[in-house]
């Protein structure tokens, strides 16, 4: 019972953190580094990966979906919901595949780079359905930007994983 409560609470906190960092990082002027619109660091992804690591796939999926819904309620339009659902689902599927190799073959840097690239791919696919083939032009440069931000968030995860694991597993709430 206590463990279950703790799991629900931690996942809720993760969802809230993912939503807030997602909104905050959209204020970072990354477009001066990457000359395309809408590039974000993807710090929100960190919490989804940690939910997967500590509590398994269903919890990670819950965090992923609730983050998208929270952002939609506070700042979204139907178009941005569609775009983030596309990116979220693509990256979640690739995350499920990559976590099978985590610690066996790849660290978080590899996992995160691949999921970030799939996030970009999902968004391009969604944008393709909305405006048509014009968005294909963004594909290579967006995916390169994604793998760069993926390496960044992966490094953050490698650094913070052990500290967070102690906090999650041992601290009494």
């Amino acid at each position, binding site marked *: 019972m206590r463990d279950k409560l703790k799991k629900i609470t931690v996942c809720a906190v993760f969802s809230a953190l993912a939503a807030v960092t997602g909104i905050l990082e959209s204020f970072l002027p990354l477009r001066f580094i990457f000359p*395309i619109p809408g590039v974000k660091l993807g710090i929100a992804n960190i919490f989804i990966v940690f939910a997967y690591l500590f509590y398994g796939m269903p919890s990670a999926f819950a965090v992923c979906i609730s983050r998208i819904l929270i952002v939609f309620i506070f700042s979204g339009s139907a178009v*941005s919901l569609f775009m983030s659902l596309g990116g979220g689902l693509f990256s979640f599927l690739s995350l499920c595949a990559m976590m099978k190799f985590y610690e066996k*073959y790849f*660290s978080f*840097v590899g996992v995160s780079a691949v999921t970030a690239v799939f996030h970009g791919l999902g968004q391009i696919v969604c944008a393709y359905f*909305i*405006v048509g083939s014009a968005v294909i*032009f963004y594909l290579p440069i967006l995916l*390169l930007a994604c793998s760069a931000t993926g390496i960044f968030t*992966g490094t953050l995860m490698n650094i913070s994983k052990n500290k967070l694991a102690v906090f999650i597993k041992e601290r009494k709430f």
Partner: protein
Amino acid sequence: MNKKLLRNDIILITAVSAVIALSAFAIYKPDKSEYITVTVNNQIYRSYRLDGNICEKIGNTGVVLEIRDGTAKIIYSDCPDKLCLNTPGITQLSPVGASIVCLPNKVAAVKANKSPKSKEADGIAG
């Protein structure tokens, strides 16, 4: 951190980047085309010459396209995120397929080789 994992990460990321770079070669084909084709809702709305001088509202969307000094830009949009306003303009040097997209308005301006025959439009009159 484990050395083997780090090595595998580097191999993986190099492979992914290589695939992306290959796709870039397939998509970016620079040439001296001079048309901008504007689509609304994935339907061709009109095409403009890049050497023209225009500033006009696209259909009944809230988007204003400007072509001046060989550069096409979206200079006004009523959408909430304004990403299209921050997209760099399309010039004569941009590769074919370079585009400015406003997702909320479903408007895309794309650089094209030639003007579609049925919708021939000259930038001077535009």
